[in-house]
């Protein structure tokens, strides 16, 4: 019997081949995600994936899970409603740097602040790929993008620092080169209660890579290999990414904090007494 790709049982194979470019790292992140959920003790029917708009947003459409391809920047509040209606669901938001941190920035910080129990997987390719490679809040200063043809003049976000400051209980950064660590990290983040965040640096060879002469997908991956250091527990303030500079990877934050629902149930019980029954979903 011909062996089948272990990833394929988690994919909508009727939609493969996918739309991503040669050398794009998104498919690699999907392989890691699939291996991570395989290693969790969570029934697949209970995992919901919510995405926004963009190349990364298309991940939701390829996974054979309950999945929602919502509006640009808004997968996190959708995920909030989904999770609160049915707290038994494991909700994963899978979206890109522009979607989550430009238009979606406000929703990210509030969900982190509330410690909503969900996992945010942010594939950071430093660009809005789907629309032709515009600048995003993570694009390094001096990088060329279609809307910064003379080089970006803005300092980007340091995503691990932002996630850390906003209250995330789990913050990690890996690149698509670090597949083993990424699988482990995704597994930890998904299984961890609270707001978990993983930034995955990934090549966009067609746009960001080409315009900034970073080579093709493989050359960008080899750059990640040669220029990243892993420092688990590092201070997230040090996770700044310079243009064509060193990449600090690792699991930076892993702490405990009561989730939104933990606080809701505890405090409502204290304040309302017997008239309040713990909320377990609608």
């Amino acid at each position: 019997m011909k062996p089948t790709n272990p990833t394929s049982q988690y994919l909508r194979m009727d939609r493969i081949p996918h739309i991503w470019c040669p050398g794009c790292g998104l498919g690699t992140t999907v392989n890691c995600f699939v291996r991570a959920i395989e290693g969790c003790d969570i029934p697949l029917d209970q995992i919901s994936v919510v995405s926004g708009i963009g190349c990364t947003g298309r991940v939701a459409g390829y996974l054979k899970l309950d999945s929602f391809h919502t509006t640009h920047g808004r997968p996190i509040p959708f995920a909030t409603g989904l999770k609160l209606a049915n707290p038994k669901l494991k909700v994963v938001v899978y979206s890109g740097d522009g979607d989550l941190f430009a238009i979606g920035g406000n929703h990210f910080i509030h969900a982190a602040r509330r410690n909503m129990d969900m996992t945010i997987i942010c594939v950071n390719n430093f660009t809005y790929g789907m629309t032709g490679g515009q600048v995003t809040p993570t694009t390094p200063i001096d990088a060329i993008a279609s809307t910064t043809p003379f080089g970006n003049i803005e300092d980007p976000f340091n995503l691990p620092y932002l996630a850390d400051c906003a209250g995330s209980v789990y913050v990690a950064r890996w690149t698509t080169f670090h597949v083993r660590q990424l699988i482990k990290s995704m597994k930890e983040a998904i299984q961890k209660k609270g707001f978990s965040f993983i930034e995955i640096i990934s090549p966009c060879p067609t746009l960001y890579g080409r315009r900034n002469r970073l080579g093709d997908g493989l050359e960008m991956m080899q750059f990640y290999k040669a220029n990243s250091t892993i420092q688990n527990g590092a201070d997230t303030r040090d996770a700044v990414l310079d243009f064509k500079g060193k990449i600090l990877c690792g699991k930076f934050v892993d702490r405990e904090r009561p989730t939104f629902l933990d606080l809701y149930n505890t405090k409502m019980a204290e304040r309302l007494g017997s008239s309040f029954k713990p909320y377990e979903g609608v």
Partner: protein
Amino acid sequence: MPDAKRKQPRGLTTINVELCKGCGFCIAFCPAGVLEFSQEFNSKGYHPPHAIKPEACTGCGLCGTYCPDFAIFGIVVKDVA
């Protein structure tokens, strides 16, 4: 390194040539150097990989984890003495 007494590979790669987009990740990141670009083309014009040292394959599965197109995967097969 392949075990001198072992007569069969411990791992096996399967390649769906039509899905391959020639990115080269599997070739570069295979720890045992099993793969190389073949001279063949698929219908999209890419050179898919092929196993040049199949006996070195350990079935680690890294090729499959790296492949962004789900075109290749590696599995462990039983040792055959």
